[in-house]
């Protein structure tokens, strides 16, 4: 399992559009991809899961990946988040 902490910089947080991008990215990988926010885990492959997490801009979240391609998954997802998701 790999974990990495990142700060969400997308201006409106992980709202609909960025969350949609994130889900699509996470779905590329075999590993499970989850985000940990305030002690709860949310499935990053489910858009409803990410939206339900209600992550605002500036919040620190932890990306948790587990599986055969966990390293690549973690790398790709954290890069997307720190890159501001095209905002």
């Amino acid at each position, binding site marked *: 399992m790999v974990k990495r902490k990142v*700060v969400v*910089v997308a*201006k*409106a*947080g992980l*709202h*609909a*559009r960025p*969350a*949609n991008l994130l*889900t*699509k990215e996470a779905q590329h990988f075999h590993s499970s991809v989850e985000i940990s926010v305030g002690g709860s885990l949310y*499935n990053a*492959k*489910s*858009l*409803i*899961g990410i*939206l*339900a997490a*209600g992550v*605002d*801009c*500036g919040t620190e979240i932890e990306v948790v990946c587990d599986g055969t391609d966990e390293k690549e998954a973690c790398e790709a997802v954290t890069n997307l988040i720190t890159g*501001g998701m095209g*905002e």
Partner: protein
Amino acid sequence: MHGYGVSKGLCYAKVLVLNEEAIAFPVEIGSPAEEERKFMDAQAAVLEETIRLRDKTNETAGGNAADILDVHCSLLKDSGLIEPIKEEIAKQTGAALAVEKVMNRVIAQFEVMENEYFAQRALDMKDIKDNLICEILNIKKPDVSSLPEPTIIVGSDIPPSTTAGMDLKMVSGMLMELGGITSHTAILARTLDIPAVVGVSGLLTKVKTGDLIGFDGETGEIFLNLKENEIKSLKKKIEEQDEEKSRWNKFSGEPAVTSDGKKFDIFGNIGSPDDVEKVLERGGEGIGLFRSEFLYLSSKILPDEEKQYDAYKKVLEKMDGRPVIVRTLDIGGDKDVPALRLAKEANPFLGLRALRLCRRKEDVFHTQLRALLRASIYGNLKIMFPMISSMEELIWAKDKLRQCQEELQKEMVPFKEKIEIGIMVEIPAVAVMAECFAGECDFFSIGTNDLTQYSLAVDRGNETVADLYTYYHPAVIRLIKMAVDGAHKNNIICGMCGEAAGDPKMIPLLVGMGLDEYSMAAASIPEVKEWIGKLNTEKCKELVEQILRLSTAKEIEEMLRKFYIQNK
């Protein structure tokens, strides 16, 4: 009746109320396998229709509006939604009711979220739910895809899947009982420039299909039962509004490109976050000057970091990635700030003003820089220092900015690493030394109002010498040219944010000099864009040569006037 105006404009038309009948869930249901089949068929059909609408919207309204529908597509495919519904069906629940139950749980979860943006997503879920249930139960919705006459669409909510299929040419306005300013309908209405008011309580009990009503998308006011003369005056206002819009639209959406293909940036000047809409509406491609003074001038106490951060963030977000040049505090001179208790000076314009004041009151400057850096992550922020007269001042200001960056880094507060730093060219010394200054910053913005006053030693507020105050003075023209040339030798951009940048007579001269960016009052933007489109850069360069041979302001103004009349 009243609501929140979310998309500006007046309108007056017949109402169409979207169907709001309660859904009756069937009592007799099939086996779980049959019901699951029904659900999956409906899911596939709704998904297919949503994809179609997404692609259509992409063509008609652009990517932003289509993104909303792409989110709907993802939600429709989401295992976090499909699996719980299948599980519910397996418990002997009918397909439609299973969708209702599961999605209501999700909707409730979103409705209680504190952040309004996320709470609004409940409306998206509701939209998807209604579409799925209508598909499963074969319920027909009112047809909005071909409207016979101009119509105001009314609903408790007007979901994106409905707006996407609308006959937009015939939609005069949209009214919603629910919703906030970040609801998709509000965003879409603004994008498409259709007047809209949301959050109108009691709307559906008072308005019926076929009623003739009007409303104001700016104030949120709704006009029912209008008298003859009121209708007349409203219609007249709408006509005027449409005329103005069509004039703006013609040029606002287009870049300012000369007849020989050279593009120039046309920006707007603003004094507060509320001015941004006007700039965008008229086609401003950025903010060339955000006067940060309003924060200081309007309050008795100095604005703290949070208050400033909020204001900068608001502007950056509204500008959505377009450049925003914020000028740091420019007070003193003729602008007094009660909270700073500045001493009266004999010569305020030559005294403790703008950056000079910041050097004496470092804490004030420090607060502003921190607020700016923190807000920088929300868009394309550029910082501009006013009243620079020496290299030492510029280097001092950059040092202070670096210190604030280090501070924030230590505090783990995010900010953008690369922020362009520029200076106002408004003191003749800087124009003369332009090449030197251009090596130390990323852009110039020429402030012609002060540059004129300082070059000619004419107090611009003093009526008795007002006749001497003119930027057509050959010395001012030369200083402008020195600034532009100095910038270009160092490959940095040179803009202008003074009155001259929006003056149609000056523009050919500035185009000839190669000035890159023109920032002006929002109202001038469409006119300037139109005017630049008629210019030819070679002809403008010739004009510069001719102007530089003249020795009086009067001759220069006359030649520029002639050029304008001959070419407009």
